[in-house]
């Protein structure tokens, strides 16, 4: 334990309103703390400079998965285990279910939350690519009110997101698609379980008469943030995924992503594998 634990404060607000008022009083003074699976690792390593945390784990307003004909709205404190257990999510949003199943371990999945994952803004996170593919929108609340932002564009840089200091993520809303898309998710990690991703690929496509009518592709661990490969999608949209099209898409992907060398992997490997996964995705949707 490398941090000076006695210097850390944690308050437990009695409800969401109380939490938001504390965060508004001195924006940035109190930071929300959900399941702790990211923050406690930093604390252990002596890498958590912020000292004042609000325990939001018990806030009932931030729990639950609501289903309407148009949307599924997942409250921010939904854990990965909650996601895995939800039948409708598994049916209609399988990439999210897969991502949840591949995050950490069961013990991590019981404590890690979608809201926490989004707020932590790691480019190697497993769920964000799925959320991007599903056109997620975020509900952000503060004492000033509520605003909705599309998840696409939420990032502006490495660990920089459009979340104000006085705001909490309240929910993630996914539009339900009423036509059948093909889904593909592959996380290439350091091992088969409990792995940090080296490359994460999430894709979904709607084919009409063999042509790609609609497509979404998102990747993790190949840029300072999780990203939608918009240009690559453009190459595929409207065409049949022939070998030539796939090759062009792979070349475009190489320009859209900026993988790096780090202690886990190399830029060269990440690029190559991202392109291979793109090809695999195209094979899958063509079949």
């Amino acid at each position: 334990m490398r941090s000076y634990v006695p210097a850390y404060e944690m308050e437990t607000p009695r409800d969401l309103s109380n939490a938001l008022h504390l965060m508004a009083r001195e924006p940035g003074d109190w930071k929300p703390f959900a399941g702790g699976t990211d923050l406690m690792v930093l604390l252990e390593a002596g890498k958590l400079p912020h000292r004042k945390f609000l325990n939001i784990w018990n806030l009932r307003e931030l729990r639950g998965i609501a289903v309407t004909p148009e949307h599924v709205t997942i409250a921010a404190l939904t854990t990965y285990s909650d996601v895995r257990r939800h039948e409708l999510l598994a049916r209609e949003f399988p990439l999210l279910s897969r991502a949840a199943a591949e995050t950490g371990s069961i013990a991590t999945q019981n404590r890690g939350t979608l809201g926490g994952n989004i707020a932590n803004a790691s480019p190697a996170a497993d769920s964000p690519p799925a959320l991007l593919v599903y056109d997620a929108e975020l509900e952000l609340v503060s004492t000033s009110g509520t605003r909705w932002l599309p998840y696409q564009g939420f990032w502006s840089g490495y660990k920089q997101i459009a979340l104000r200091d006085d705001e909490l993520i309240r929910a993630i809303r996914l539009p339900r698609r009423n036509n059948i898309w093909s889904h593909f998710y592959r996380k290439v990690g350091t091992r088969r379980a409990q792995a940090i991703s080296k490359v994460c690929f999430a894709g979904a496509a709607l084919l009409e008469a063999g042509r790609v009518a609609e497509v979404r592709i998102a990747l993790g661990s190949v840029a300072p943030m999780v990203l939608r490969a918009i240009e690559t999608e453009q190459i595929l949209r409207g065409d049949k995924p022939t070998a030539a099209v796939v090759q062009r898409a792979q070349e475009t992907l190489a320009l859209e992503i900026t993988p790096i060398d780090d202690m886990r992997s190399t830029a060269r490997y990440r690029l190559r594998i991202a392109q291979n996964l793109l090809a695999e995705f195209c094979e899958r949707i063509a079949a």
Partner: protein
Amino acid sequence: MANETHQIGKSVPRKEGREKVTGSARYVDDLRFPDTLYGATVRNSVPRGKILGIHFQAGIPWDEFTIVTAKDIPGKNCIALLIEDQPCLADQQVNHPEEAILLLAHPDKYLLEEARRAVRIEIEPLPAIFAMEDSLARKQLIWGEDNIFKSYQMEKGDVDSAWSSAAFIVEGQYETGAQEQLYIEPQGMIAQANATEGVTVWGSLQCPYYVHKALVRLFALPKEKIRVVQTETGGGFGGKEEYPSMIAGHAALLAWKSGKTVKIIYDRAEDMVATTKRHPSRTRHRTAVTREGKLLAMDIDFTIDGGAYETLSPVVLSRGTIHAAGPYECLNVRVRSRAVATNAPPHGAFRGFGAPQSVFALERHLDRVAATVGISPEELRRRNFIREGQTLAFGQVVREKVDMHQLLERALELSGYHEKKKRFPLENSRSPIKKGIGFASFLHGAGFTGSGEEYLASEALVRVSRDGKVRVLAGSTEMGQGTNTVFAQIAAEALALDCEQIEILQPDTAQVPNSGPTVASRTTMIVGKLVETAALAIQKSLMESGFLKAGYDAAQFAVACRQYLDKFGALESLVKYQHPKDLHWDDATYQGDAYGAYAWAVYVAEVSVDTRTAEVRVEDFVAVQEVGKVINPVLAAGQIEGGVAQGIGFALSENVVWQEGRMINGQMTNYIMPTSMDVPPIRVFFEEIPYGTGPAGAKGIGELPLDGTAPAIANAIANATGVDIREIPITPEKLSDILESVHV
């Protein structure tokens, strides 16, 4: 002698099993003493340099702290092992990153960390060496006169005479990386020390008498004033063979200066970066073969990286050298080997101890030799396997029964090798997933090399009490491999009692004799034999006294003990190791009987390689070995399975990322050991040809699985993909580059 055994060969449940499954087993951090200080080590970050000053920054109540530097050491500032080159605390110079410079203690463990951050070490950097090549080239002299801790030249026949008559000459270079032992319980020690009573340490360790020797030197105290107690140890694998002397010295010095009990427990990050790892290696092979694939000559060059101080490098080098030419008959062999210094934390013991490195090179090389000759890997082995009466590379005549041919056939059959070798190429042509199968054939010598066991002169003691309870006193430690249970079974068998009547004493140098270190696959074979001998001597004394009659039961045994003790006072037997008279080893020429016994093995790995991601998955693993006698089937299989899992990590994922001599991926998140999803079915099969000098015929097996696992996997990957593998770990990044270069 009756063939029916009542304890040997039975899967008697682990002696301390109940404590372990209920959480009541007490590891060092579970022990609580009143009034304890926590201790921490302040380390440097520079790989090599002169210490100019130590600065204590403001904001910490330094007067509350116990602070220890090299000047506080009562005896010699060294960790005594083979030699005394490694300081306990760096004094004028540092020679590797994370070297210990000073020690702090305080009752508040949180404040202790703040204080550790507030010490600034001023160092003037000196040029450092990180690569074995640079060390050999003497770009800097960083140790001794030539950077070489030790070198060997082992020769048989005349290697240079063979080249001209060879039909084929095959060369190759093979490399293995560092590997972290990653016992799940980090290193820890508790110490009490003062000039009057002496020094006592409790901790997680494999070799109480190694620690004892080091503390004697560090404190300049007589032997009787040093006491070392082993606590329940959560894994060792060699990582707690020599390193505990360092942490024990640190805890004891803080205890000495403060007058209080001191506890040092490493967190995982510190344990990973500061303690020993498996020696990285580079092996060069040059092999002459006949047209039919008969080995004519093997010229082997073997180098290992020892890090900044000698520690055990000469012995690791020795074992690696002796195992370098494998279980084959070749009339001309030369092995030139050396252990060199670099400015990294010293490398040390890790299960296999040099052999996994040289055996990887050999077994990978022989598959390439087979391909050059144009025969299958298994046929090449068949044409060269050593037989009884023939001579191994270091001049030992094989006098035990061995049938490598039969082991090979059995392993190939159990793994479906031939059928898979036919089927896989067809399946591979239709799929991005390429399957392959490969094997390694090898041997592992048990016990200390050559005259080592004679030098150790191990002892074990068995004592009975008035209630008929039998106590075994030995310095051998339990760390999960089953020492307690196996000793109990051996003693129970000898005395015709149940294991419940046998108690194994906690290793405490104040109570138990020196049975040598718990290493080198020697505990069952060498020390177990002493236990067996001592137990039989007890039985003999009881029978000769007339108090015990043949065919006795447990109750009668107890009565006889009481009667004997009433009459004679005590009954115990202390047995000292006797080196077999027919074993001769010459240290000067490095020739002779290296080991009393060998385990022989063939391991087969089936892999699948996803060419889209270059990820390798081990799908099935068959491990066949001849081990003399299996004393406890569950424990023995457990040793092989655990060793294979470590070998899988060694082969595929356990990559130490170095930056200027420092491991930068020292977290469990970033240093990748296998999880339950990363291991295949591991199918273990034993054969038994009893070893006359082993207890109940048993040979040693603890290290064996580390030798054959990685090369079997490497050979399987080569079979699956057609590419050549020359180094481990074969990470997806490396394999991806190789696959790419082949296709371009």
